[in-house]
């Protein structure tokens, strides 16, 4: 079984690393909520994913931003279809 073969560009790598580095702190501030991050700055914790996404479009416009559920352990999405080419 292959592991962590990437199909992404480096977009949002900074935010992803920032989230991982601060995951424990975020767990104390907003466990189970959705955090909005741009660069290395937190712009709030939101009850739902789309609350955070709507806030991001309002604040930043149509640019990459990072909305991620704050959980202790990352749970990967599951896509078992044979149509997926990775």
């Amino acid at each position: 079984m292959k592991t962590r073969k990437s199909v992404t560009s480096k977009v949002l790598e900074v935010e992803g690393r920032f989230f991982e580095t601060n995951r424990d702190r975020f767990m104390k501030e907003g466990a189970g909520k959705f955090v909005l991050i741009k660069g290395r700055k937190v712009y709030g914790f939101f009850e739902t994913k789309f609350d955070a996404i709507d806030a991001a479009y309002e604040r930043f416009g149509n640019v990459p931003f990072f909305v991620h559920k704050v959980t202790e352990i990352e749970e990967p999405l599951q896509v078992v279809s044979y149509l997926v080419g990775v």
Partner: protein
Amino acid sequence: MAAVSLKYPDLQADGATVEVRLATAAKTIKGKPASGRSVPLTALIDTGASTTVLKLGIPSFLGIRPANRAYVNTASTQGMPCHEFAISLILPQGFKVRTTAVELPLHTQGIDCLIGRDVLAQCVMTYVGSENQVILSF
């Protein structure tokens, strides 16, 4: 409850495909209404996918920027990083579903999108195999 009824020549052989339109999930961008640009896609309803999947290249074609960096397990890969996008799927009869979708290569002709359980979580799906019919009720 309103419903989308889908009929097929051979549901077992072909799977439950549906013609959708895809657009950004943004309602407003910096206080202005988001542009209404959308593209038609052929999607396959896939109960094996926990999330909706877009074929590689479609988000950039539509100008939709990533809204998250997620990790995906597939049949052959574990913990693969990929981008997640906020989208609106417009189903037949105009039903609009806001959700997020990951971007992955789809190695098949004619399928641009897998509709995952994130969309099915927002409706009732009735699979009538004996009638080659699928009904999505919202």
